[in-house]
C-alpha cells in the first residue's frame, strides 16, 4: 500500500480542478437552494450553457473565443427564464421536475445528430481554447513545465486553469456573500421560509425567485466554462444529471446557506473522493481473496465509490443536516 501516493493525490484533489468547478457550481446552487429554497436540479444544464457558449464560438460562429463568455451568459439567462416563467408561480416541487427535465433536454439536443452543425453531436467540440492558453503563456506560465511543491505540484497547463478558477471562486463567493448580507438577500431568505408572508409585506416573490434562479444559473455557467477550458473540449455527457447531484452532495457536505460551505464542501468532496478511490485501487491491485471470490476488482472501484457517495449523503442528511460549517441554530427550528 503506497500511502504517500494516496495522501498526495487526495491533497491534490482538495484544490484540483474538479473542486474548483464544483465550488463555482455549488456557489450558484447555494443561491437557489440554500438561500431561496428553490430546488434547481438542472444545474448541469446551466453548466452546459457556459461550455457550449465557449465551444460554439469556434465550432459554429467562428468568432473569437472570448465572445463565448457573454454568449454563455445569454444562454443561461434564457434557460432560466424558460424554466422559471411557467414554474416559479407554482410549488417548489414543480421547479425541481422542470429543471431536471430541461437539463436532460439540453444534453440530448446538443448530442443529437440533427444539430451536429451547431453543437458537434456526441463528439462534442474541441480546439477552441487556444486564446485562453495563450494568455497564460503570455503571462509566463509554460504549459508543460511543473510548478509548485509537493504535494501541490501542477503542470503549467493545469496551474493556469486553477488560478483563473480559484479567482472566480473568490469573486463569486465574495459577490454572493455581499448580496446575502444585503436587504436583497434578506428577502430571499424570507422567501425560503414563507412566500405568503413575504408577499403580504409587499415584495414580488416571483420576481425575486426569478432573479435568484438566474443569478445561480449564471454562476453555474462559469463553472461549465472553467471545466470546458480545463479539458479543452466540450462533451455533452459531462453535463448529465449526476453532475447536478454530486454538486448538491458537495454543497450539503459543506453546509447550505453558507458561502464557506459551498467552497469547503466541494474541496472535501473531491479530497475524500480521491482518497477513497486511490485507496480502493491499491487494494484491488493486491486483491483479497476469499476462496474463489475476489472481494474487490479494479473495475468495481468506480461504482463502489459512487455508492459510498450516496451512503455518505444519506448519513449526512440524518446526522448533520447543517453540513460541516452550517449554522446549527438556524437549522434547528422547524418550519412553523
Amino acid at each position: 500500500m503506497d500511502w504517500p501516493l494516496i495522501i498526495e493525490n487526495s491533497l491534490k484533489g482538495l484544490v484540483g480542478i474538479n473542486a474548483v468547478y464544483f465550488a463555482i457550481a455549488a456557489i450558484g446552487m447555494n443561491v437557489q437552494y440554500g438561500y431561496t429554497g428553490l430546488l434547481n436540479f438542472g444545474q448541469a444544464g446551466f453548466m452546459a450553457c457556459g461550455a457550449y457558449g465557449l465551444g460554439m464560438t469556434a465550432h459554429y460562429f467562428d468568432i473569437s473565443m472570448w465572445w463565448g463568455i457573454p454568449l454563455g451568459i445569454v444562454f443561461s439567462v434564457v434557460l432560466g427564464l424558460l424554466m422559471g416563467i411557467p414554474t416559479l408561480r407554482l410549488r417548489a416541487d414543480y421547479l425541481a421536475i422542470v429543471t431536471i427535465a430541461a437539463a436532460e433536454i439540453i444534453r440530448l439536443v446538443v448530442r443529437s445528430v440533427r444539430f451536429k452543425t451547431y453543437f458537434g453531436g456526441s463528439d462534442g467540440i474541441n480546439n477552441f481554447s487556444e486564446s485562453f492558453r495563450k494568455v497564460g503563456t503570455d503571462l509566463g506560465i509554460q504549459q508543460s513545465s511543473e510548478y509548485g511543491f509537493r504535494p501541490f505540484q501542477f503542470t503549467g497547463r493545469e496551474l493556469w486553469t486553477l488560478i483563473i478558477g480559484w479567482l472566480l471562486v473568490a469573486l463569486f463567493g465574495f459577490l454572493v456573500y455581499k448580496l446575502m448580507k444585503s436587504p436583497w438577500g434578506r428577502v430571499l431568505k424570507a422567501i425560503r421560509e414563507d412566500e405568503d408572508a413575504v408577499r403580504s409585506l409587499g415584495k414580488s416573490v416571483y420576481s425575486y425567485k426569478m432573479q435568484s434562479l438566474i443569478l445561480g444559473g449564471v454562476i453555474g455557467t462559469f463553472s461549465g466554462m472553467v471545466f470546458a477550458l480545463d479539458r479543452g473540449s466540450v462533451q455533452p455527457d459531462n453535463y448529465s444529471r449526476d453532475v447536478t447531484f454530486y454538486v448538491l452532495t458537495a454543497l450539503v457536505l459543506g453546509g447550505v446557506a453558507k458561502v464557506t460551505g459551498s467552497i469547503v464542501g466541494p474541496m472535501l468532496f473531491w479530497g475524500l473522493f480521491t482518497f477513497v478511490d486511490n485507496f480502493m485501487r491499491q487494494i484491488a491491485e493486491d486483491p483479497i481473496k476469499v476462496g474463489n471470490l475476489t472481494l474487490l476488482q479494479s473495475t468495481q472501484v468506480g461504482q463502489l465509490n459512487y455508492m459510498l457517495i450516496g451512503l455518505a449523503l444519506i448519513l449526512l442528511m440524518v446526522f448533520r443536516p447543517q453540513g460541516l460549517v452550517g449554522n446549527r441554530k438556524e437549522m434547528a427550528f422547524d418550519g412553523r
Partner: protein
Amino acid sequence: MDAERTYGEPATRAREALGICERSPGSRKPDPILVAHDVRREFGGIVAVDVEHLEVQRGSITALIGPNGAGKTTFFNLMTAFDTPNTGTWSFDGRSMEKVQSHRTAAMGMVRTFQLTKSLTKLTVIENMRLGATDQIGEKWWNGLFGSRWRAQEEQITERAESLLARFNLAHMRDEYAGALSGGQRKLLEMARALMTNPRLVMLDEPMAGVNPALKQSLNAHIRDLRDQGMTVLFVEHDMDMVHDISDWVVVMAEGRIIAEGTPDDISRNPAVIDAYLGAHQGRTLLEESEG
C-alpha cells in the same frame, strides 16, 4: 369600562360617523376606506363568499365575525389578492383593486396578517421587522452589492423597527431567531412587522387565537392604539369579549353572506346573529320542537 375610555381624534370622528349609519347589511358609510361590491367566490359548487355590498369606515375598528366556514378568511384573501373572486369589484381608498397583484397591496397601504402566524422562524426578530419596510433601495440586487447605497436607509428602518419592538414589548428579543418566540410573541411580531409597511388599513386574521388572557389585554390596547394613530383596522375574531371590547362596528358573516351589521351592542341583540351562531332553534326543548 367604556365610559372612562378616551378616544383619539380620528377615532372619535369615525365613531360619530358610524353612529348615524344604518344598521343593516351593506349599509353605506360616510367615508369608506374599503368598498366591496358583489364579490363572489365559488369553490366548485360551494359558494364560499357572496358579499353584496360592504363598506369599512375610515379610522374605525371593524370586526368581522361569523361561525366557522362563514368565508371570513376567504374574504380577506380576496381583498388582498391572495385569491381571485369569480365576480365582483372592490376598491381601496378610492382605487379599484381588481387588477392589483397581492404584493402591490402592501405598497398601497393595505396590509394583512395570517390566521396561522407566519413569523419567519430562521430570521432574527429584527430582520423580520426590517423585511417589513417597503421601498428599500437595497432590495434591488444591483444596489445590494454596494452597502453605501442602502446603509443609511437601513439605519432609519432599524430605528423604526426598534421603536415598534419596544412598543410591542419585544425589544429584549431583538437578536433572537423568531423561532425562539412563544406563540403569543409571534402574533405580536407579525403585527409589528405588518406595521413596518406604514399601512392605512390593517387586516388582522384572528389576532387573539392562541394568545393567553394577559397578553390579550395588551394586544387589545395595541389595536386601539393603531386606531388612535389614524389607521383603520379590520379584523376577524371569534373572541366575542374582545370584539365587544374594542370594535366600533361589527360585520357578521354566515355561509358567505353578510347577515348583519351594526355597533357591538346592536349585534349582541340581533336575533339573526344568535341564530347563525347557535342555530335557529336554540332555547327550545326537543318537545317544543316536535310540537311546533
